[in-house]
């Protein structure tokens, strides 16, 4: 198989991006209304200006929301999944509870979260926490349950202690699914974060969109939107790299990389 040359790949991307920007520019010239459709140049200038002024604080605020919420959500999802895998009683209670809550998307919680936490940073943190718990829970439980019994039996027979079996057989075997769940969680959490910041917070990238909308500064709104896209993409890329690095041996990972 031919190895993709990175330069050719970059050129293709630059071409597509260039065409997109030119189309956008032509459309903005045609519309001729800087509020209705700011030109790419205006957005780029607004972006540069914002990067020097407001954006770093907003990005930091959003990352704090994400860090706290996602950390707590992932920890809860993992803990509940492990609890379910170990105890039949916990499984009989937690599993239906999660299945009942799961269809209620994080966004449906926004009004209740506003009632309990007030407009502020608690709302996005809670929403991210809620949104990220489910994919990790579901995937970890599936991962732990699908571990090949023969592998466990073989390790036991060769004299491995139960603890060694967990750290060297169960965890590695469940890892691809856990990481896939982590990636899924991050995507859902990112969208929930923007929605929560837009409707119920006083800091973060989503809130900044709402803020500039009040001034009809659409070039700045678009600059913030692009920032959200770039950071969402980078976070996913980081987890994808982590996934590839930690589970290089897995057939799923190799299939995805191909």
């Amino acid at each position, binding site marked *: 198989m031919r190895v993709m040359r990175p330069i050719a790949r970059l050129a293709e991307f630059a071409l597509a991006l260039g065409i997109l920007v030119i189309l956008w520019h032509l459309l903005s010239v045609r519309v001729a209304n800087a509020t209705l459709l700011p030109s790419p140049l205006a957005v780029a200038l607004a972006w540069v200006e914002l990067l020097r002024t407001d954006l770093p604080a907003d990005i930091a605020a959003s990352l704090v929301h994400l860090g706290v919420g996602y950390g707590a959500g992932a920890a809860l999802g993992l803990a509940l999944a492990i609890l379910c895998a170990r105890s039949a009683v916990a499984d009989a209670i937690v599993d239906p509870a999660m299945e009942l809550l799961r269809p209620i998307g994080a966004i*449906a919680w926004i009004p209740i979260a506003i009632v309990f936490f007030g407009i502020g940073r608690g709302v996005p943190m809670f929403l991210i926490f809620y949104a990220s718990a489910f994919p990790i829970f579901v995937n970890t439980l599936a991962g732990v349950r699908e571990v090949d019994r023969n592998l466990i039996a073989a390790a036991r027979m060769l004299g491995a202690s139960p603890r060694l079996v967990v750290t060297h057989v169960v965890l590695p075997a469940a890892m691809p699914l856990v990481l896939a769940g982590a990636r899924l969680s991050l995507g859902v959490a*990112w*969208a929930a974060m923007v929605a929560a910041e837009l409707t119920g917070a006083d800091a973060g990238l989503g809130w900044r969109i709402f803020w500039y909308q009040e001034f009809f500064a659409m070039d700045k709104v678009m600059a913030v939107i692009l920032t959200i896209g770039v950071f969402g993409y980078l976070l996913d890329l980081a987890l994808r790299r982590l996934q590839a690095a930690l589970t290089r041996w897995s057939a799923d990972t190799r299939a995805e990389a191909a």
Partner: protein
Amino acid sequence: MTLPLRIKAPLIFFPALLLSWECAVWLAGAAKIMPYPSGVALAAIRDIADGTLIDAIAGSLRRVITGFAVAALLGVPLGLLMGLVEPVRRALDPIVDSLRAIAPIAWIPLALLWLGIRGNAALFIVAYAAFFPFVLNTIQAVRLIDRKLVDAARALGASPLLVLRAVVVPGAVPTVMTGARIAMAFAWGSIIAAEMAIGIKVNPGGAATVGLGQLMVSTLYVKRDINGLVLYMLSIGLVSLAIDHGVRAFQRKATPWQR
């Protein structure tokens, strides 16, 4: 007769939870600031009887279905193009990925500006959210088609048109359908967010309620009815369950050769 644990444990746990929740709220005298089960049930009777809930759900669902259809009409052809022409896929992949990373709801200010508050802005958000699952799954569907089956059909003398109809389409449809299921779930999730964002911006008086999201906003800021909020939340969950079951049932009917 003893029931199995999987049935017995939840059967004891959940009623006990609801009962102790109800008692705790009343004992603490917190019925004004905390939702409680009987209050939610009363809110449900009230809102179903006067049609508020059904109207709001119908209003939201209408926009979800329209946005979903728009997303399918745009997403499937783009996915086909990207799946069939490798350079196009390589060039557009990063662009699709980064657009996908933008939470649909972030577009709300521009959507409002371009399409107005009467529901078309929410429609844009829904279509945007549902677009990407269609694109990604169509690409995947095209790439997963077994070349050997295509070659075999060609070798046995099938015309390209017959190959398309008898091999390619049946091979691709199940994956596209899975994309449709994800798209529908995204669409339902984002309509609520979009309606909430629009409602907060436009409807401070809560006068014109057109969807479940707007209903939630007016309940939150105007009526301050916390039991109602819990009821709408549960309704959102029930509708998404119903949608998922509906799409799955359709999928089984439409692609009986799968499993």
